[in-house]
């Protein structure tokens, strides 16, 4: 096994929450600089997998290894959204600075090198323009940029994002993806981004980890997004249809033994505009 090539190794991980098996024997590896989509319907275990990688949830079996060498940055994380009041007295640059200092006890004097690091990070995510505005007043896309800067200011080798595109308009989605692709390439950061709709990510992904009913299949999009592979993963017949460059994943007809939970169908079956 090429340990040096696997920056993040998820090995046979199972997670139980409240007696329910949420993840079953999930395995995949991520290489440095890889841009990976974690795709699955709501309730398929995406957030649980991200929380396990972050160490916020303990797997009941298996192991997760980060082979980051001497990099001290750990794993960067962008939560889905901040529950922020518009009046929260926190400027965008304050939130980015907390990425450096948020775990430190006591006060420290303003430092030129820290301000320079914050300014550089704000510029890297194209947020200089609104750096002095309150975070609660920013748009969803702007908040995402600030959260990405908060996560990356310690230079972690891996960045996890929980449904970052879920609440954004189409233009903001495109901008965030361009930004993440650029950061992954320029700073050699491995990006793992969860989404219930794979279509916005189709051109960007080097690798896809597809989750269904707690099980995972991993490979290139061409290897995974196929009728045979997804049918085997779901355990019943699935059609993968490509229409005008969009991928539709459809449960052709629901077999009798299938759980009658429509929410667990692939969510991206939804209407074509």
């Amino acid at each position: 096994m090429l340990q040096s090539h696997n920056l993040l190794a998820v090995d046979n991980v199972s997670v139980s929450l409240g007696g329910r098996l949420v993840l079953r024997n999930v395995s995949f590896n991520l290489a440095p600089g890889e841009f990976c989509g974690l795709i699955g319907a709501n309730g398929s275990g995406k957030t649980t997998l991200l929380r396990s990688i972050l160490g916020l949830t303990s797997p009941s079996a298996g192991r997760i290894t980060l082979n980051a060498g001497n990099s001290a940055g750990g794993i960067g994380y962008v939560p889905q959204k901040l529950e922020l009041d518009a009046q929260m007295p926190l400027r965008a640059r304050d939130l980015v600075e907390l990425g450096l200092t948020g775990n430190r006890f006591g006060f420290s004097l303003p430092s030129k090198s820290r301000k320079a690091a914050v300014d550089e990070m704000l510029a890297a995510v194209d947020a200089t323009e609104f750096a002095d505005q309150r975070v609660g007043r920013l748009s969803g896309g702007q908040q995402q940029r600030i959260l990405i800067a908060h996560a990356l200011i310690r230079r972690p080798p891996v960045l996890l994002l929980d449904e970052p595109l879920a609440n954004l308009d189409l233009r903001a989605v495109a901008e965030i993806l361009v930004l993440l692709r650029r950061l992954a390439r320029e700073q050699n950061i491995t990006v793992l981004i969860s989404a219930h709709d794979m279509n916005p990510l189709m051109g960007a992904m080097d690798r896809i980890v597809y989750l269904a009913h707690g099980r995972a299949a991993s490979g290139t999009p061409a290897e995974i997004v196929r009728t045979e592979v997804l049918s085997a993963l779901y355990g019943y017949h699935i059609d993968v249809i490509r229409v005008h460059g969009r991928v539709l994943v459809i449960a052709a007809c629901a077999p009798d033994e299938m759980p009658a939970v429509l929410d667990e169908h692939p969510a991206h079956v939804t209407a074509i505009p």
Partner: protein
Amino acid sequence: MIFAPGFFTNTPVQTALIIAGSAAIISAATGVFTIIRGQSFAGHALADISSAGGAAAFLSGISPILGFLGVAVLAAGALDIITPRRAAERDLATGVVLGAGLGITALLLYLGVTLHSTSGAAITVMFGSMFAIPASLIPLNLAIGVAALVIIGLIYRPLLLASLNPDLAAIRGVPVRLIGLLHLLVLSLAVTLSAMTIGAILSTALLIGPAAAALRIARRPAAAIALAVAFGLISCWGGILLAYDSYNWTPGHTWPVSFFITAIIFVLYLLSGIRRAG
């Protein structure tokens, strides 16, 4: 005349200025975090419940500050136990405990008044009587204030991050639960100081009012804290001054300090809204 004769040489006034000053600083600074964390109702409940401690102290003859402190710290522990629950469930539990606490206060005050044949205790415990505080309480009062300031100074940044998003704090190694518990401890210290100053029932005004006004204006966390402290001091010292002067408005009678303090807080809150709109 703004400063009536004897204001700065009068011992009860000097004592009141010191006690109220420390209460204003600690309550206002703590209040900023309490509001950011969405725990205003917990703060209010803590303040009201501490009245049981004040009443118990009156009944048993110990110093009221120890009574407020003991019950406030106990109540903070109880709040920490229900913290992980859902917000709605938490508010219900807090409300039920708050009711039980005030019921105990009613019983203790009744027993106290019956046994000691004095009737002023209820007013003192609930609404404060600042000019009656003995100067001997100043060292203990300042010690509590310094302890609260030290804790706030130590946990300032981890508390800010944990209040924004507990997961972001947890992955940075911040002990989120401990930080939350320390915030509740500081909250109970703030409530103790305020209960001594303007009474247990009104101490929530000093906790939430100045901080709420500051949050309408400030853009940065440190500025919000500084502004809240300034508002708290203006309210408390201004209230003491007006109460002292009121002796000349209605000769022979001093208006309650707590009325003036809460009135100034209210006016500051209204003004902060105008400032924001402008």
